[in-house]
């Protein structure tokens, strides 16, 4: 479980996060949604320690991120897996080296042990026979899967994903979403996914946090999101024609 308590973050004059309070549950896929520029990525980067919020506290279980010492930080980092928007695979390394990288950094395992684990996670994300290829030589969907493999190779307790299906076709996007959810349940991870994709909301939105201009305006589940009267949420949810039509059909049926 991760809890944030009144987080504020500014860049220069501009306040990007204006006091956000919520919890992200263990063993669930927690979604942060909202329009582009609403501060989703900034919130995520505060959670993983890339940005320091000016105010507010972040709890990992019962420990406060801001009050951890160097050693506690190091231990926490080993428990974090992050899937970046573009994959962020190291393009000078092969797929195998990319996935092995966290193990080389965090463990003292023998090469053969590391390799065994690498093959295990690559298999888990349904990738085989790509070990010796470079990121540029495989498709976007495969890169995302390698990136997931790298994020989970060291058995993280927390998994963060920034727009995991941006740039993917709808079918591949669903495969990636489902993979993230399966892994979350399988290993009982606290997963946080940033997205603006309504398909993901429907597929995997077990807990949803809606941001608008740096403020949390709504939270709930993917069933509740279609029933809420909150105007910000409805205008986001029904911004696509498809969802408008679905809503109209539902209203007619009633």
């Amino acid at each position, binding site marked *: 479980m991760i809890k944030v308590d009144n987080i504020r973050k500014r860049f220069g004059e501009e306040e990007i996060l204006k006091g956000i309070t919520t919890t992200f549950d263990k063993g669930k896929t927690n979604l942060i949604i909202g329009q582009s520029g609403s501060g989703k990525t900034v919130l995520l980067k505060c959670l993983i320690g890339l940005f320091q919020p000016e105010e507010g506290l972040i709890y990992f279980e019962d420990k406060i991120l801001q009050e951890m010492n160097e050693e506690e930080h190091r231990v926490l980092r080993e428990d*974090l897996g992050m899937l970046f928007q573009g*994959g*962020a*695979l*190291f393009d000078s390394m092969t797929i195998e080296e990319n996935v092995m990288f*966290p193990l080389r*950094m965090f463990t003292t395992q023998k090469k053969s042990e590391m390799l065994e684990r690498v093959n295990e996670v690559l298999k888990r994300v349904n990738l085989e026979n790509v070990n010796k290829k470079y990121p540029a030589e495989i498709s976007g969907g495969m890169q995302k899967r390698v990136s997931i493999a790298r994020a989970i190779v060291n058995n993280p307790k927390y998994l963060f994903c920034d727009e995991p299906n941006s740039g993917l076709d709808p079918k591949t996007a669903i495969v990636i979403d489902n993979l993230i959810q399966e892994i979350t349940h399988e290993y009982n991870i606290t997963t946080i996914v940033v997205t603006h994709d309504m398909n993901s909301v429907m597929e995997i939105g077990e807990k949803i946090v809606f941001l608008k201009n740096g403020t949390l305006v709504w939270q709930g589940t993917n069933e509740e999101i279609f029933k809420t009267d909150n105007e910000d949420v409805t205008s986001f949810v029904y911004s696509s024609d498809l969802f408008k039509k679905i809503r109209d059909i539902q209203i007619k049926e009633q």
Partner: protein
Amino acid sequence: MKYLKDIGSYFLMLKRVFSSFTKSAVLKKLIFKEIDDLIIGSMPIVAFISFFVGGVIAIQTALNIDNPLIPEYLVGFATRQSIILEFAPTFISIIMAGKVGSFITSSIGSMRVTEQIDALEVMGINSLNYLVFPKIVALLLYPFVIAVAMFLGILGGWVAGVYGGFSTSAAFIQGLQEDFIPFHIIYAFIKTFVFAFILATVPSWQGYFMKGGALEVGKASTTSFVWTSVLIILANYIVTQLLLS
């Protein structure tokens, strides 16, 4: 104001490059890779340019001293002086600012825009140490590149002078030995170390702190070349003033 801030960020960067070191086994591999990319990879172009520019220096000198009173060995002498003092250390470094410098800026810059640097930081790796320190170590071998440039430049001068009929081999070699001041070599290599440090750190700094996307990576490489070459020229002036006058 903006320049002051830039300069501040450069020195803060240097401080972080030399703190929280990456695992040594990992660093060792990175250093060898940088030696391959930055040093070995630059040899062909450096060799090519040095040899031919050395030749041109010899021909130009010979053509400009048609006066029979001026001794023939001057061709060798002038070639040696210009190559050791300026051409090899400074001119080659400016070329390296274009080749190695823009390579460093664009590779670090694209790691920045594709969040590879963030990925390192999330894993608790000091990305500045990981990325920049190996480059500084690799460029400790840079004087070797300059030594090769000196040798090939002089060889090029000899070939052009002798086979072009501007000087006899004996006179050229006499010129090479005439009035030889060993301190000039020391001066040249002190400069080279200073330039190597600039070449490793300034382009890294430009790439590391860039913002934006692929287009900005290209712009950053250009800006990086300007900064690096201007700093090399300024450093050249300062070191020369301190050591030779």
